[in-house]
C-alpha cells in the first residue's frame, strides 16, 4: 500500500508542476492572440518567439472572437522595466511615472500617427535576473518596444535578450557602456565615460582649478565609471588629481577621512561623481572641517537642494554638469514639472526627465519610420534603428538631441552653478 501512496504522490506532484506550467502557457497563448488580433488581416505575429505563433495557430478560434473589436487604429504596446521595489525604487518609480505621463499626453493628443500607446511597467527589483523575467513577462503581454531597463546592470542583461529577439530598446538611464552594445539598443542619458570626459574637459578648459581631489563610490558602477574616465582624461588636462578616495555602499555616512585627505593634499576642487544623498553629507561634513573648496559634480548631484534637513546654503557655489534641472525656466520643463507634481505630488528628478524624453523619442522615431501597430517586432526594430539616427528631439534633457548608430545620444551637458539656493546656468 505504501508504494501506491508514493507513486500517487509523485504523479500528483508532477501533475501539479505541469499544471503550473501549462496554466501559464495557456494564458500566454490567449495573451498573444489578443495582441495578434490587432492584425487580423495578415498573419504577422507581434511577438517574435515561435511558441506564440504556434499558440496562435492552435487558438485561431480565440483570434476570430477577439479580432473584431480592435480593427481600427490599433495600439502600440510599449513596455517598461525598472525597480519599483527595493533600494533603487526611487529611480524605477520616477521612470514609471514620467513614462506614463508622456504616454498619456501623447494619447490625449491623438497618439502616434493615430495609434494609441498602451504602456505597461514591470518591476525588476534592481536585479539582473528579475529584469530578464520582467522582460519575458512583457513579451508574453505582447510588448513591441521597450523603455528600459532603468539601471545599468539590468540594462546589460536585458540588452542581451532584446538583441536575441531583435526588439527595439531605448534605456532612459542605463549609463554603463555595455548597455548599448547591440545595434537595437539606444539610450537617452549620457554614458558614464562621456560624463567623466566632459567633466574633466570642462574643468580643464575653463581653468577652474589645478589641484583636484576625487571622492567616489567604488561599489557603484555609475560613480566608478565616471571616475575612471575622468582620471584617464585628467592626464591630457592642465590639472592634477592629488587625491582619489573611495567609499562603498556599506560606508557612506562618514566622509571625514576622505575630506581630511583632500584637505591635506591641498586640493582646490573636489570632484564628486556621486549621487546627491551622499554629496549632501559630504558638504555638511566639509563645513564642520572648515574646508571650503569648489565642489563639482555630475548629473547625480541634481536634487541636492531638495534633501530634507539639508542646509542649502552649504551647496552655495557647487557646480554640476547635468542635462536636467527641475527649476529650469524653459516652457517644456515648467510644464513637465507642473504636470508631474500635480499627478504624483513629487518633484521629478533626472531619471523622470530621461524617461519622458525616451517616450517622445520613440514617438518621433515611430512617426519618421512610419511604424504601424501591425508590424512584427523585428521589422519594427529594423525601421526604428534607422529612424532613431534621423530624428532630432528637443527634450527636457537637451535641445536638438540626436542619436548615432552606436546608440549614444549627442547632446550638450549643461554646467549649472548653485547660487542663492537655485540652479543657474553658467
Amino acid at each position, binding site marked *: 500500500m505504501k508504494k501506491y501512496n508514493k507513486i500517487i504522490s509523485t504523479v500528483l506532484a508532477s501533475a501539479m508542476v505541469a499544471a503550473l506550467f501549462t496554466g501559464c502557457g495557456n494564458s500566454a497563448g490567449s495573451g498573444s492572440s489578443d495582441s495578434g488580433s490587432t492584425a487580423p488581416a495578415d498573419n504577422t505575429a507581434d511577438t517574435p518567439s515561435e511558441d506564440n505563433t504556434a499558440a496562435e495557430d492552435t487558438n485561431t478560434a480565440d483570434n476570430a472572437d477577439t479580432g473584431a473589436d480592435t480593427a481600427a487604429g490599433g495600439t502600440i504596446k510599449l513596455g517598461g522595466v525598472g525597480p519599483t521595489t527595493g533600494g533603487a525604487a526611487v529611480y524605477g518609480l520616477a521612470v514609471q511615472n514620467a513614462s506614463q505621463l508622456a504616454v498619456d499626453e501623447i494619447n490625449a493628443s491623438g497618439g502616434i500617427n493615430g495609434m494609441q500607446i498602451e504602456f505597461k511597467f514591470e518591476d525588476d527589483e534592481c536585479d539582473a535576473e528579475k529584469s530578464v*523575467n520582467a522582460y519575458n513577462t512583457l513579451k508574453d503581454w505582447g510588448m513591441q518596444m521597450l523603455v528600459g531597463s532603468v539601471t545599468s546592470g539590468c540594462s546589460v542583461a536585458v540588452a542581451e535578450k532584446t538583441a536575441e529577439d531583435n526588439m527595439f530598446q531605448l534605456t532612459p538611464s542605463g549609463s554603463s557602456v555595455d548597455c548599448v552594445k547591440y545595434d537595437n539598443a539606444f539610450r537617452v542619458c549620457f554614458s558614464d565615460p562621456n560624463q567623466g570626459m566632459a567633466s574633466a574637459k570642462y574643468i580643464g578648459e575653463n581653468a577652474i582649478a589645478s589641484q583636484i581631489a576625487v571622492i567616489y563610490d567604488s561599489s557603484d558602477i555609475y560613480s566608478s565609471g565616471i571616475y575612471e574616465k575622468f582620471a584617464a582624461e585628467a592626464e591630457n588636462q592642465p590639472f592634477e588629481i592629488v587625491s582619489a578616495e573611495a567609499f562603498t555602499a556599506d560606508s557612506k555616512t562618514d566622509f571625514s577621512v576622505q575630506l581630511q585627505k583632500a584637505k591635506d593634499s591641498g586640493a582646490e576642487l573636489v570632484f564628486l561623481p556621486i549621487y546627491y544623498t551622499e554629496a549632501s553629507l559630504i558638504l555638511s561634513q566639509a563645513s564642520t572641517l572648515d574646508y571650503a573648496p569648489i565642489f563639482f559634480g555630475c548629473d547625480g548631484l541634481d536634487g541636492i537642494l531638495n534633501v530634507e534637513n539639508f542646509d542649502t546654503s552649504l551647496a552655495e557655489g557647487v557646480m554640476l554638469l547635468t542635462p536636467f534641472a527641475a527649476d529650469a525656466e524653459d516652457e517644456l520643463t515648467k510644464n513637465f514639472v507642473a504636470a508631474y507634481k500635480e499627478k504624483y505630488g513629487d518633484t521629478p528628478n533626472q531619471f523622470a526627465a530621461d524617461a519622458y524624453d525616451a517616450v517622445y523619442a520613440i514617438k518621433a522615431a515611430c512617426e519618421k519610420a512610419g511604424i504601424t501597430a501591425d508590424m512584427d517586432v523585428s521589422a519594427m526594430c529594423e525601421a526604428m534603428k534607422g529612424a532613431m539616427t534621423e530624428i532630432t528631439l528637443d527634450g527636457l534633457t537637451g535641445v536638438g538631441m540626436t542619436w548615432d548608430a552606436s546608440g549614444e545620444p549627442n547632446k550638450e551637458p549643461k554646467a549649472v552653478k548653485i547660487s542663492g539656493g537655485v540652479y543657474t546656468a553658467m
Partner: protein
Amino acid sequence: MSKTYSKLNLSKTTKSNFITYLLVIIVYLIVQFLIAGGHMSSLMKGLLVPLCIYIMLAVSLNLTVGILGELSLGHAGFMCAGAFAGAFFSKCMQGSMPDMLRFLIALILGAAVAGLFGILIGIPVLRLKGDYLAIVTLAFGEIIKNLVNVLYIGRDSDGFHFSMKDSISLRLKEDGEIIINGAQGITGTPHDASFTIGVLLILISLFVIQNLVNSRDGRAIMSIRDNRIAAESIGINITKYKLMAFSISAAIAGVAGVLYAHNLSTLTALPKNFGYNMSIMILVYVVLGGIGNIRGSIISAVILTLLPELLRGLSDYRMLIYAIVLIAMMLLNWSPKAIEWKERIRETYFSGWKSGKGDSAKTAAKGKGVR
C-alpha cells in the same frame, strides 16, 4: 506494481532516491513536451534555468543544514565564488576552445574554487556550533562578496594584471581588456546555460548527495548531527566529516553559481544576488521543503521561485502578497496543529494508506529533533 518492486528487492532509501530522480526527469520531459508544443510562455522559458540554479542551491544547502545539522548563512558566498571563477575562466578562454568543453571546465573550476573556499572557511568555522556557526558563516559570505567587489583583473599582451584599487592601476596596454572590473563585475559572459544542462547538473548533484547520505561517510555525518559526543566516542573524526559535508555543499553551490553566471551576460556581486539576503532565501527553501528532505527542497525551491513571477498580475502588492503566502505556506506545512490536522484528514478519508505517512514527514521530524 508492488510485485515488481518486491522482486527488485530495492531498499526503502533506494526507492525513495529513484522517485526523486524520476520526478526530475518527468518534469523535464513534460517541460520539453510543452516547449515543443508551443505551450510555454517566454517568462516560463526564461525561468527554467534559474529554477535549476535555485534547486541546486536548495539541495546543496540541505546537505549542510539537514544532514550535517549546522545552520549556514553564507551559502550565497560560495555561489558567488563559483560564479566568478567560472565566468572568469569562460571570459579568458572564449573562442580558444569549443564552447561545450569550455563550459564543462568552467563548471568544474567553479566547483573546485567554491569547494576550496568551503574548506578554507570550514576549518575555523566548524569549530563552532549552532548559532555561533551561523553568524560566522554569515560574515564569511559577506567577506567573499566584498572581496570580489574590490578585485580588478585585466589582461594584455604581458599577461594578467591584478589590483585591489581601481582599474586604472592595472596599467593595461592598448590591447588590454579588463576582465573583472571591481564592483562592475564581469560583463559579456557567454550564454551557455540551458535547461537540459541545468537538469543534468541537478541529477548529478542529487546523485552525489543521495549517495553520500546513504554511504558510510554519510552515516558518520548524520551521527555527528544526532549526537556529537556519542559519535566522537566511537572514534568518528568529527572535523573531517564536517569538512567533507561542508565542502561538498559549497562545491555544488559553486556549480550553481557557474550556471548563474552563464545565464546572464552581466555578473555583479550585489547584496541582492550574492549577499545574505540570498543565503536566507536559500535557507527558506530548505526550511519550507523540510529540513533534511531533499525532494521537499526541490519542490519548495520551484514554488518559491515561481511565486513572485506568477504574482506579477498584482503589480504593487506583489511582494506583500508573496510574503503573506510564504507565511501561510510555512504555517500550513509545519505548524504542529496543521500537521495534526493533515494526519486526521488522512486517517478519515484515506485510512487505507495509514501505514504510509510518506517519508517527508518522518525525515522532517528527524531534522527537528536535532535543532
